[in-house]
């Protein structure tokens, strides 16, 4: 997870307070509900210039910062390698 991603997450996690957001924290426990998940999705897609396919928009993807970051990394990998 990079710092930009963690900073992007924080406004959507109303119970996170000032605590560090670890890769294996439960996003739902930190306050991400289904309405906020949509807002987070749009923010992630804008910030990282990716489109997360419908079939990956599951509870598993939004379970932890780590699981969401893994999806983002995979989607942005080709362009990072210069293969896009």
């Amino acid at each position: 997870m990079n710092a930009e991603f963690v900073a992007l997450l924080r406004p959507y996690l109303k119970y996170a307070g000032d605590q560090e957001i670890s890769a294996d924290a439960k996003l739902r426990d930190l306050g991400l509900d289904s309405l906020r998940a949509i807002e987070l999705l749009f923010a992630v897609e804008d910030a990282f210039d990716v489109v997360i396919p419908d079939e990956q928009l599951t509870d598993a993807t939004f379970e932890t910062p780590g699981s969401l970051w893994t999806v983002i990394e995979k989607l942005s990998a080709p362009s990072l390698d210069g293969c896009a």
Partner: protein
Amino acid sequence: MITEDCLAEVCQAAEKHARQADLDARFPEAVLDAMRQTGLLGLMVPAEFGGGGGTLTDLADATIRLGRVDMSVAMIFAMHCQQVVTLAKYASEQLRAQVLPAIAAGQVYIASVTTEAGKGGSLLMSESPSELADGTLRIDREAPMVTGGLHADGFLITMQTPGATSPTQVDLVYAARHQLTLETRGDWQPLGMRATESVPMHISGQVPDWQVVGEPGTFRAIATQVFAPVAHIGWAAAWLGTAAGAYSRVIKHARSDAGRRQFDPSSQLVLLRLASPRARLDVVHALLKHAICVVHGQQDLSAAPVQTLLNTLKIRAADECFEAVSELLLLAGLRHGYLTQSPLCLERTLRDLRSAALNYSNDRLLLAGGSLALMDSEVRLA
């Protein structure tokens, strides 16, 4: 094994007590006794624990039958089955071995405790903290509505996970009646669903930590995979049965000697008003059967198309069944539609079905539906 005779016996008891239970707003204990004695209470207990090993289709079929005579009884039964299916899938070995055979033997009727004041009806949140010390979990919470709470032998209760840092960290805990102190905090005088006797209660007590159902903090997953889907299927079946029963009574009346004088089959108005409720019921029935197939066939029910379908089942069943009976009232007229003494029982049925859109609010599910729609740009149909 749950036979047709068992179900018929419970339906007979429900029919006998429905009017008085509604009048008194009291739980139909005689009907619960019939469920205990016939084994119906154990329908959804897996066969290896001595139960009926029922499928979701069996649950829906039995609930529809009960709904035809009394919606309160159908909801009491469906909600109990929801608790049983959840225990069978997620409870620890120790808890399953202790509780499931007792349910199968008709000794344990389980009530659900998920309501709390101040959380807007959200199933996935709890404002009630729990404490864990030396392997013992302390429960202490208010519950504004507990269906059958005065008569249940066991309770499945949502609580905050011990040490929770947010209200979304929720556990589901099983507690037997003897482990709890139960105080009734008020009366039950609702518009309909009166025989569910869903009184406000204060619930306190202590249980060993192995009575937490599933891993601590995982209630959300349990709710997504089992608790909510089975609730929506069970409720839809109860509402469908209720409306189908009312419809059947109206048609039988229309074909009786007295009815033939009231309903003229050459009247286009009568024919149109007879046809419309049927279409509503067939739509709900098709949706119910399809939802059951999808739940049986999917490993992960969290995908947006599946969640949407399950929510649509609940919303449409609530609306269509209420509308169907509302139309039946207009067709039957004042005497047979509006009066409490009418043997068609449309008035009670309408009051009962008015609760359907509120029993986990349709509006809340529609809001979730908006978010789910944005998660599914391909509009994949489950």
